[in-house]
């Protein structure tokens, strides 16, 4: 199986959009699923949510933030390069039904993870209210894509440099406050953001789905590294998820587990003296 990069765009500082030709994965992809890949044959296996797929072209779109050794290695690849190992589509597809009004919440690169679900829910006839946010103007991604599929779109930045100032969870709270009624909420982004969303929607008893992004190794249910506590039961995010009932997820333990490798990772980054070398021409949105 050959996986070739056919387009690479820098869409924000350290954030890249890759279009990868991988026909079997593109053919099977359903919203909510992910791939595990290794940018070099010495890299870690990294999980990445598929943003969308073009079945006729046989391509998938991945949005990657270059923060660790392996994601930087990926960001250093260019058009025409082959990704030696790419496995997917993994995980259970998102439940796509007609619910009524659905709020889609995306924070940071999690915005990409929620896009496919938003698009599929729109196609299923739901009214889509999207709330997307980022640290500042530069880091905001996919506004255009979301405006295309949303009946209403709210854009926020933490510092107010673009859109409204504040967090996506605050926007959600405000919508409830002014009388919006929702049938379902779907959120993807930093754990602390998803936790805040879950806290708010629990008060209103709105069914809420979050897409979890734990540390993973194999991605096929073998190691248990991605385990989380959901409803006090151990689940494997790679095969039981990645989407779960937000009101059942133990976010605290997941946050601690996700931070467990932080020191090792920063040491590896330092040891490898790996830099993001920007090669080739690509557009900055």
């Amino acid at each position: 199986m050959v996986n070739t990069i056919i387009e690479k765009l820098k869409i924000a500082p350290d954030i890249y959009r890759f279009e990868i030709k991988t026909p079997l994965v593109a053919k099977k992809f359903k919203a909510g699923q992910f791939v595990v890949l290794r940018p070099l044959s010495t890299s870690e296996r990294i999980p990445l949510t598929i943003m969308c797929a073009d079945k006729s072209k046989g391509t998938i779109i991945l949005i990657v933030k270059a923060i660790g050794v392996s994601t930087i290695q990926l960001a250093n690849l260019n058009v025409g390069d082959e990704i030696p190992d790419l496995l997917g589509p993994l995980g259970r597809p998102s439940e796509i039904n007609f619910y009524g009004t659905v709020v889609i919440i995306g924070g940071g690169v999690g915005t990409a993870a929620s896009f496919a679900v938003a698009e599929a829910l729109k196609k299923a006839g739901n009214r889509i209210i999207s709330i997307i946010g980022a640290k500042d103007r530069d880091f905001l991604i996919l506004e255009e894509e979301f405006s295309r599929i949303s009946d209403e779109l709210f854009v926020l930045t933490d510092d107010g440099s673009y859109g409204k100032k504040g967090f996506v969870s605050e926007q959600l709270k405000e919508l409830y406050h002014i009388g919006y009624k929702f049938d379902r909420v779907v959120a993807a982004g930093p754990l602390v953001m998803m936790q805040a969303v879950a806290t708010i929607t629990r008060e209103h008893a709105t069914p809420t789905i979050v897409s979890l992004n734990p540390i993973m190794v194999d991605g096929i249910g073998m190691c248990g590294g991605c385990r989380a506590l959901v409803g006090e039961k151990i689940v494997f995010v790679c095969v039981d998820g990645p989407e779960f009932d937000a009101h059942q997820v133990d976010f605290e333990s997941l946050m601690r587990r996700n931070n467990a490798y932080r020191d090792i990772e920063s040491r590896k980054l330092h040891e490898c003296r790996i830099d993001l070398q920007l090669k080739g021409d690509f557009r900055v949105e």
Partner: protein
Amino acid sequence: MPAQSPEERIKNFDEVNLGYSPEIAFEEAQRCLGCKDAPCSQSCPVHVKIPQFIAHIVERDLLAAMDSILEDNLLPAICGRVCPQENLCEMQCVLAKKRQPVAIGNLERFVADSTASLRSTREELVTKKLSGKKVALIGSGPASLACAGDLVRLGHQVTIYEALHTFGGVLIYGIPEFRLPKSIVEFEIKALQKLGVMFEKNVIIGKTITIDELMNENGFSAVFIGAGAGLPNFLGIPGEELIGIYTANELLTRVNLMKAYKQESITPLLSYEDKLVAVFGGGNTALDSARTALRMGAKKVYIIYRRTSEEMPARKEELIHAQEEGIEFIYLAAPIEFIGNKDGWLQAVRLQRMALGEPDSNGRRRPLPVSGSEFIHEIQMAVIAIGNGPNPILRNTPGLKFTKWHTVEVNQETLGTTLRGVFAGGDIVTGGATVISAMSAGRKAARSIHNYLMT
């Protein structure tokens, strides 16, 4: 068997057993009585003609010995290392009644290793009549490798699909380098490739391609499911989500498959250096995990097991190796809670003393908790090695029936599943077992598949 000294080997990942010199091998081979009824051979799951191959060693004809083994066992270098011979061929050796049995496993390994370079230069497959039939094998562990070897020799076109980025299944991600060097597995895969077996990595059947598509769109006439038992069991006690607790699969996958023991590896491993480590379980995987933790710099490694050494399913040789390396065994104790600090890092485990009661359905004495015997044992790292369930990915394949243990339901005679043309064998059918039993199932399935294709 000559081995690296314990002091030396706990500092490296090189193979512990060094293998026989020709002198030792010839001497050992001469001990074989060449029993006509060959009880050793009868108890071998693949029925290697043991007295014959040993007789060839005595004649100093190692290639003939190798040819004899290869008729029944395609992976002798692997089986010579990881087979539980003490419960199979060597247990039935008539010499075992009075003295030491013939070291059949060591001899098998000796033959395989000393003929490896000769084998690689020989053209193994004289052009066979091709059947024109395609068979897809799911998973590249021992069941599929054995199945592939037989099917390709019977003239079928064989493709092995592997979900991971390296071929070999548990031989690669599970069994550590110090017990089974990965170069040996690679050698065997290359040998199969030379025979014409095709290998496709990064394809997960059931997700990337379905069984139905293999048969109806990709032109395969039969499918073999050898997906293994890779879904780790948990203890089901509070605190299993704490940081510092790995399943054996995660520790071994990070170290073996992702090479975390090498300085240049990018895959991180939580540090074992100067840590107190507890491994829960009593099988080979528990011992592999304990010895891996030791090699990663642990200060002290405990194996905590509910029963006693008598009931331990691990191989005796490995148990002795582990003891020599300074692993400490705490028997008749079971964990009831993991205790962490406020940041979620493991600090200790609460254990409970056990006593052995009446034998259970498997004949092993059942451990029973001793009330009021709880105590706290300080550890910073833990490994859960209490077995694996069958891989879950194919569970929603339409028409494919599973048992209540989530193993694939098969006809015991043919290994045929509830789907026509689809066969299964190895750990996906039996639950976690041995390399040799998986190979035996792979060969049995190959015979059934051949019959199915040719009628």
